[in-house]
């Protein structure tokens, strides 16, 4: 087990180096010149050259790359925003709770809906509730989350005079008000993500329910609840967990749009604003941080298989 974890961590190193190289080159290839925009539009410095020197953009690209990566490795310094001069890491950390909360609530919503409907669908295969569940899953798969979000923002405000709350309150200040704000975006996003979970829960549970040990459980005279929930469910959850893992980058990517629509001050909005202002250090560092999180998460998910299914051993 320990060797497996170490090997996976070792494999993550070249992956992240490549990620940093890719994202850095992309940013250097950007056509528009942020420096000109900062000087001419906003008078950040007397001359373009002065600002270029100040931001270190007059040095060769490889020096800039080494500085960026070196700063991260040696000092945990992800660089600073061109515009605000604030350290990116501080801004990221202060905004991350919003995005994390949104992601967790979204995953919670999609998992609860997906697993419940999936279980009912599988346990009552080919019944009316199965069909209703499957149609719901297909609908959820088809509606784009940003489309649903726009409709949820626009329609109730016209017909019911209801609008989502736009002034963000941190969880620590007023948990109840915070939940009131987060619940709508999380549900909107979660419902559209529940479709695939529902379908994979159903097909995986159907698979497990046909296995011998389930027949044994039935023949021992166990009630349905015990057979399905205690014997079958845990084994059927493995593909579901791996799907949630695979989807996590989608939650993080989609949070850009959800945060923009519901005006939540999270990492997604930070990233989007940086992108529109050509704030490259922010764009490349956020990309790298999030990619590192995805790599770590994938490892965590692979390790969770061993917990869910004791037959799985890593060497």
């Amino acid at each position, binding site marked *: 087990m320990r060797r497996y974890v170490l090997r996976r961590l070792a*494999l993550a190193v*070249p*992956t*992240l180096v*490549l*990620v940093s190289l*890719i*994202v850095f080159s*992309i*940013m250097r290839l*950007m*056509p528009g010149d942020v420096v000109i925009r900062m000087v001419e539009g906003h008078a950040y410095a007397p001359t373009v050259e002065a600002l270029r020197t100040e931001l270190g953009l007059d040095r060769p690209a490889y020096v800039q790359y080494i500085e960026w990566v070196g700063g991260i490795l040696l000092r945990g310094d992800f660089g600073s925003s061109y515009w605000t001069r604030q350290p990116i890491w501080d801004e990221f950390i202060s905004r991350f709770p919003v995005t994390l909360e949104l992601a967790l609530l979204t995953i919670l919503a999609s998992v609860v809906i997906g697993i419940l409907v999936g279980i009912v669908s599988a346990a009552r295969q080919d019944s009316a509730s199965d069909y209703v569940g499957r149609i719901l899953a*297909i*609908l959820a*798969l*088809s*509606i*784009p989350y*940003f*489309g*649903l979000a*726009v*409709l949820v*923002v*626009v*329609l109730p*405000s*016209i017909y019911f005079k209801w609008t989502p709350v736009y002034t963000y309150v941190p969880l620590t200040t007023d948990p109840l008000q915070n939940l009131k704000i987060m619940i709508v975006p999380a549900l909107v996003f979660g419902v559209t993500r529940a479709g*695939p979970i*529902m*379908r*994979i*829960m*159903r*097909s*995986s549970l159907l698979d497990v329910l046909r296995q011998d040990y389930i027949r044994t459980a039935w023949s021992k005279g166990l009630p349905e609840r015990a057979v399905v929930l205690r014997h079958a469910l845990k084994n059927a959850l493995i*593909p579901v967990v791996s*799907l949630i893992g695979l989807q996590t*980058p*989608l939650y*993080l*990517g*989609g949070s*850009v*749009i959800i945060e*923009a*629509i519901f005006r939540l001050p999270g990492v997604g909005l930070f*990233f*989007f604003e940086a*992108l*529109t202002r*050509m704030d490259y250090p922010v*764009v490349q560092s*956020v*990309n790298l941080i*999030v*990619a*590192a999180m*995805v*790599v770590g998460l994938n490892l965590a998910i692979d390790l969770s298989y061993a917990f869910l299914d004791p037959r799985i051993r890593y060497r």
Partner: protein
Amino acid sequence: MATIAPAPPAPIALDVRRLPRTLPWYVAVWGQMLRRKPLGTVGGVIVLGMLLLAVFADVLTPYGFAETNLRERFIPMSAAHWLGTDQIGRDVATRILYGARISLYVGFGAVAIASVIATLLGIFSAYWGGRVDILLQRVVDAWMAFPGLLILMSIMSLLGPSVLNITLVLGIAAGLRDSRIVRSVALSIRENTYIESARAMGSGHTRVTFVHILPNVVPTIIVVATTGLSTVILTEAALSFLGLGVPPPHPTWGGMLSLAGLDHMYRAPWLAIWPAAALSLAVFGFNMLGDALRDLLDPRLKGG
């Protein structure tokens, strides 16, 4: 000199005309679809309808997609404007029809690019194996570590919004991702004895790759491509929604829903409803068609 006359060939007892006619798999699959997959058939009909609407958009509507009429702003559904007009008097129905054109163009274009990349990269990586495989797969790993939308947004803001750019970017992105699946299928095909015997009979690597491996990977590629279509269309819509996809005045469903136009939708909710409905219907169609094709062509890939 005695010569041994070759024995005359034995008459063939098999009458080819009497054999049950077997259709090639790529034809037979549609028959199976009609008989066994009602939802897949519905999906196929939706996709077909969308294709027709997109192709005949010019004939179907009297308006142009960028034709403004400031005297007819925010008109609700009416006989002249079936789905209403937007903030500068453009006909929403017209823009939805032309939007289908762009969605399909980007969708099919990107998927075609993705299929070629995934096929070449996947087969090459699997067939060559060893260090090449390890190296290529690390690149794919790095690519998959990116949270999709973030890196696509970064690249699109670098290239600038345009139909060609978004098609290329989505195609390459999907191609890198799908090459994993093609690789895994090619890996198992490579182990077959007939590959070994083809090599032993003197087939070169190119011949083995294209004549013996490629045809066996094709069903998988078709499945991956069809299921990928809805993802590509959705991603294009998401990027256009943010203003990073297809630039105005080209109408796209994502662009019509756009973040920037949110304020107008409070006044004219149909501006949000119809593009969202069109997008959902298209994604539904492609999803159903893709699922059915997957079940019929390559049940191994069955997910949920």
